[in-house]
């Protein structure tokens, strides 16, 4: 359980990290919090020739509120984001998702960008990003910056559209301006802090009469990437969110999933959970929106 040997460089700036990536090519990996990468290296599931450490780059650690988004530096620790009350008020789903992520010790070290770049299909932060359609800002030394929305960022299990010479620099989390907005995150896991068997997230906004004016929801651990259901969510808009309507949307989402079987749950059980948890998340988000 010891990592194989690797070459180590501590990058002092984003520019230097990008240059090192370009120079080392495929054999190099960025290390942020290391809470997923180091266990994989200890188990020799990955064996990078070179690690580029981005932990000391201050420019990758920030939370900046804009009009319609909150920008979060990729190397911002999960615990820092979790404690940020102003951020939680504007993007409540982020704090709700983080409550399910690992443990205090791993959130103190683990980063927002690291979890997204790792792209575990069972992970909470990728699901929150997919549901809110967060935007990932990527930088390469030669080509400058490009921005991808979550739908095009997650390409498969543990894989993203980040190119070998690119560094995830920041994540833009959309802020919903509707005053009556509620969100919720729920999951089933064997023990709290473990990987989700299935996770669900939802956010809804209501008008003064209580009709849904905007909705988003999604599921994790039931496909190769976290899944959002924009068409099903659009079907909720304009309606009063009755239990029947919520259950129908949740069932349709579960039908659209492609869950796998493993030691913890069969595909059938995961599909059942997907319907139950999606309905619970939508219901809880609706209740919060009504109360706001």
């Amino acid at each position, binding site marked *: *359980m010891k990592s194989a040997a690797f070459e180590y460089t501590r990058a002092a700036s984003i520019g230097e990290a990008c240059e090192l990536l370009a120079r080392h090519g495929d054999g190099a990996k960025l290390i942020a919090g290391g809470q997923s990468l180091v266990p994989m290296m200890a188990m020799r599931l990955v064996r990078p020739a070179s690690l580029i450490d981005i932990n000391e780059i201050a420019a990758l650690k920030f939370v900046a509120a804009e009009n319609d988004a909150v920008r979060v530096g990729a190397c911002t620790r999960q615990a820092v984001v979790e404690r940020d009350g102003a951020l939680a008020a504007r993007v409540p789903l982020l704090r709700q998702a983080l409550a399910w992520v690992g443990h205090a010790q791993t959130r103190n*070290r683990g980063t927002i960008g690291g979890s997204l770049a790792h792209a575990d299909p069972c992970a909470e932060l990728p699901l929150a990003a997919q549901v809110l359609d967060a935007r990932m800002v990527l930088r390469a030394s030669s080509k400058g910056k490009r921005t991808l929305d979550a739908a095009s960022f997650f390409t498969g299990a543990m894989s993203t559209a980040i190119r070998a010479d690119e560094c995830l620099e920041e994540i833009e989390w959309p802020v919903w301006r509707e005053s009556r907005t509620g969100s919720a995150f729920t999951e089933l896991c064997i023990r709290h802090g473990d990987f989700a068997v299935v996770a669900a997230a939802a956010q809804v906004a209501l008008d003064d009469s209580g009709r849904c004016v905007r909705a988003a929801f999604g599921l994790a651990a039931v496909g190769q990437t976290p899944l959002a259901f924009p068409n099903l969510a659009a079907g909720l808009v304009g309606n009063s969110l009755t239990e029947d309507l919520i259950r129908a949307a949740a069932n349709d989402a579960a039908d659209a999933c492609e869950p796998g079987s493993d030691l913890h749950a069969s595909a059938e059980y995961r599909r059942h959970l997907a319907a139950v948890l999606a309905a619970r998340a939508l219901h809880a988000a609706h209740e919060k929106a009504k109360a706001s």
Partner: protein
Amino acid sequence: MSGTLHLIEVDVNGKRRVAQVPARLSLVDWLRDELRLTGTHVGCEHGVCGACSVMLDGEAVRACLMYAVQAHGHRVTTVEGLARPDGTMSPLQDAFCEAHGLQCGYCTPGMLIAAQALLDANPRPTEVEIREAIGGNLCRCTGYQQIVEAVRLAALRVE
């Protein structure tokens, strides 16, 4: 290049430590094998059990999920750093003894670090907050009840 050594300078329990380390050396192996600070335990070596918890700049982290080279320029507190300067035990350590917060002792250094980090940030935690703080630390003996009681006892005493 795999044999390259990196010069690090780390504040460990208030003492400046300078060393040459290979990149692949984990922080916990450096603390135990090189500095002989064997209070920090190694359990699973992949971030599951919490036995290797130390504080990095005052916050609890898993020392098996960091390389020693990454601690350069930082402050590390191990279980050896919790005792009072005269070597007597801290209020939290005393509370663990009194409340029987341990049996075999393997998880104890990690539990103490997790609990001390909690008390430093939140001197009057609720039971839920105590359980959340030690949620990443596995204990196979106590059933956790006495550990929770020990942390609560320490919080009452320090008040």
